[in-house]
């Protein structure tokens, strides 16, 4: 348990309620900004008592989503702000943390991309396309909608406080 974090099963209902909530960040589309988003996610999740192992999974997903927007989102994605929304719900039975990334780039629904068969040997391995593999493996759920000219991709993790 990282310093400053309380064991989740010791949290009273009022504390769980106080730690639950939303946080937002707006960033530009660049590698440096993706790193700033990672730092924000880490700090904010710690403050809201999200287990560190899950924060690391969310951070990987966030980085991969942002890298994809930067590389493939097109000119609009690069010139418009990217909005991030972190939602944490601490409940006794099932807690959840999710991140929604909203960007103005080319519409892209990752849920429609067929799952990739992982190579068995190094010779078969392709160096690209691993970002979506990582997002799928590190998140417990994915949601996507395209609304008002923006992609809204949500990924999340859940855990049990008991």
């Amino acid at each position, binding site marked *: 348990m990282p310093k400053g974090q309380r064991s989740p099963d010791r949290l009273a209902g009022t504390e769980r309620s106080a730690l639950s909530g939303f946080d937002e960040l707006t960033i530009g589309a660049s590698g440096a900004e993706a790193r700033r988003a990672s730092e924000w996610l880490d700090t904010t999740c710690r403050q809201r008592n999200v287990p560190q192992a899950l924060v690391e999974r969310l951070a990987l997903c966030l980085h991969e989503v942002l890298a994809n927007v930067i590389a493939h989102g097109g000119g609009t994605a690069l010139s418009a702000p990217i909005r991030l929304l972190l939602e944490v719900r601490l409940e006794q039975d099932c807690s959840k943390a999710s991140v929604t990334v909203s960007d103005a780039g080319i519409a892209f629904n990752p849920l429609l991309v067929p799952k990739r068969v992982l190579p068995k040997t*190094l*010779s078969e391995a392709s160096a690209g396309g691993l970002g979506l593999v990582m997002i799928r493996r590190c998140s417990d759920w994915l949601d996507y909608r395209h609304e008002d000219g923006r992609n809204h991709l949500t990924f999340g993790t859940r855990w049990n406080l008991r």
Partner: protein
Amino acid sequence: MSISYDDIGDNLRRIVISGRLDVPGTDSVAAKLGELIAAPKKGVVVDLSTLQFLASIGIRALITSAKAVQQRGGKMVLVVDGGSSVLMSLEATGVDQLIPVFRSAADAERAAVA
């Protein structure tokens, strides 16, 4: 972000990468990694035990490096801290099944030149 190396005898090169292999981190070391990998050593150990974060762009650089070593008849292996998110990245993408991963530097060095 840092990358350094030392040669252990004639056949083995150890490359140590620290920091974050995210987009900016990988951009800053990719060219140097390619240069270090190109040395005609039989075995290459890439030590990631002090790496804090490994994104897919960093994994891509590792796959490209491992293939380059393999194509000249050598072998590249990794050293990773067991409880780290770096191992999680390798496992999530299945790359731990393609490039041998060790917790101990000594084991990695033996495997690289075996």
